């Protein structure tokens, strides 16, 4: 007796694709088109899980494009503290499709939100669209606006230079300004600003809204970068809290379901848009919850490794990512050395001049 499931691939059957496979070998990705070469510029953005993707791209010898790396005068530790290099530009976490779509419009000057700055209790300021990007906040409005202008230029460079744009959808719940619909990554009052129900409204995006946001964003992106390929993922990190009066677990499942449906819709309806199942790899029963840390939210490094090894295998045809290239060889002496020496020489000259002015030497 024959039926439609008789000859499906092993990966299409739960017993052969999941239950009978050692957990670390479960591979739900196939089929996936090979997209990436090591030379193609890859841009990443999204929720906190996207930070893991960025980190692995940096280590794996791919062309992880960072258009806002921080000035080279700053050492690596300071740049990391200031959140440079976490993503391709210093945009912090982009949790929602609406935030991403508005970021594009802000970068290209077609959306100018009313909320320019948010105050902190210590009188410093935060960028409402990146409230945690500058630890301790910005000192002045002028500093914040100059940094934002520079940031949005870096965002444009990233959008325009990407061969592959990887976006991790994280949340559906967000907060928006009633005045103009500007969406923020964190609710006003959490990391700056003041929560005022008259000014801000809670929004819980539907699947249709996520699809609409992303469709607009992809069209905009392709207006400046026609050949860009998009890879969508859904963050497996549960909601930290829900603004809906129900259990956070119920809100989490709802949000992730919406995002998963939206990603599927986009991947199946738009050209050169693909879905990568990192959400499934982390959350499916085969891992028996071991890909979550003790807080049952954070993803363990083993889980991230599982995701990224499958990503590199399927999206780049690479089994063992290469180590980062060696640091460049020492350069020849620079003009900076010469000037620095000249300034030191001035100090030494000072000593000589002083000796000339001292009283007659009586002993040495």
């Amino acid at each position: 007796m024959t039926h439609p499931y008789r000859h499906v691939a092993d990966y299409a059957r739960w017993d052969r694709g999941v239950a009978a496979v050692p957990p670390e070998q479960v591979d739900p990705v196939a089929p996936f088109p090979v997209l990436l070469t090591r030379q193609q510029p890859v841009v990443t953005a999204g929720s906190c899980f996207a930070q893991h993707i960025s980190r692995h791209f940096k280590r794996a010898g791919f062309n992880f494009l960072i258009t806002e790396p921080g000035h080279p005068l700053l050492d690596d530790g300071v740049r990391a503290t200031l959140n440079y290099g976490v993503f391709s530009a210093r945009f912090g976490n982009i949790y929602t499709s609406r935030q991403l779509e508005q970021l594009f419009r802000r970068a290209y000057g077609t959306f100018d939100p009313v909320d320019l700055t948010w105050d902190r209790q210590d009188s410093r300021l935060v960028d409402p669209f990146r409230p945690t990007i500058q630890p301790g906040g910005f000192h002045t409005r002028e500093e914040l606006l100059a940094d934002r202008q520079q940031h949005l230029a870096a965002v444009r460079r990233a959008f325009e230079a990407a061969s592959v744009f990887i976006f991790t959808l994280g949340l559906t719940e967000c907060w928006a300004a009633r005045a103009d619909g500007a969406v923020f990554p964190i609710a006003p009052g959490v990391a700056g600003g003041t929560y005022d129900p008259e000014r801000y409204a809670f929004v819980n995006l539907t699947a249709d809204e996520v699809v609409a946001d992303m469709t607009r964003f992809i069209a905009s992106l392709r207006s400046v970068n026609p050949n860009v390929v998009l890879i969508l993922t859904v963050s497996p990190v549960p909601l930290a809290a829900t603004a809906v009066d129900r259990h956070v677990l119920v809100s989490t499942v709802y949000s992730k379901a919406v995002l998963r449906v939206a990603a599927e819709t986009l991947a199946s309806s738009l050209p050169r848009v693909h879905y990568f199942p990192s959400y499934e790899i982390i959350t499916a029963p085969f891992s028996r919850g071991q890909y979550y840390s003790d807080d049952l939210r954070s993803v363990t490094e083993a889980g991230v490794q599982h995701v990224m090894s499958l990503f590199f295998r399927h999206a780049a045809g690479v089994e063992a990512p290469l180590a980062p290239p060696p640091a460049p060889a020492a350069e020849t002496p620079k003009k900076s050395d010469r000037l620095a020496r000249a300034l030191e020489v001035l100090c030494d000259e000072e000593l000589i001049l002083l000796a000339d002015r001292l009283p007659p030497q009586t002993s040495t």
Partner: protein
Amino acid sequence: MNCLLEAAIEARVPFSAITLKGAGEGAPLWTGEGVSLVSDHGFPDFTDESKALLTGGPEPVLSFIGGTKHVQLGLLRQMDDPSEPPFDFVLPEAPRLPLESGTEVIPFDGVRQLIRREFKRRLRLIAKVASLAPGRLIQFGPPPPVSDRWLEPFLLKQNVSATALPNRLLRWKLWRVTMALFQEHAVECGARFVDCPPEALDADGFMRDDLVRNVTHGNVEFGRLLLAQVQAQS
């Protein structure tokens, strides 16, 4: 430091001084009438003679421990290193100063970290001196930046094209950050901090041209102003 020492010599104020220059082995460089000058850079530690000088007596210990790192940073544009694009930053005490176009804006907190890193060894040295002379240390800030008039011949002498002079506002802002850092550190170390005498500054906050010896130092007249400030505060 030398400008103050010269002023002190001129005013016949006796003093003992330790210079961080020279071989640093604690040997006296000069000993004159009421004046002694030894070379000791304090690394890895001061010599016993220098420690005795610092710990003995109730007199205040004047520290000019500083450096030129902030000046170097202000000259980076002249350094032809494409990996280090010209930079600028917004100084919180003067946020409306214009930023130079085409520069990369570094967050102020990053600039502070950068300056702190560049002066790390000198700051440690101040702490060391403060611990040897508790309650007696008076720390001076670095001298203010000089006007472009002084910078151009200096750069030409180094065979560096002076067609585009370094951003003068950047040089001033870096000095202000450095001053604030040294002041903060002095207070943390229990030392008193002496700011630049206001009368030594021109209308733009740079060192008055008539007080300049070279791009990083004041002349004896600047030293007289410092000496007067110390004596007025003593």
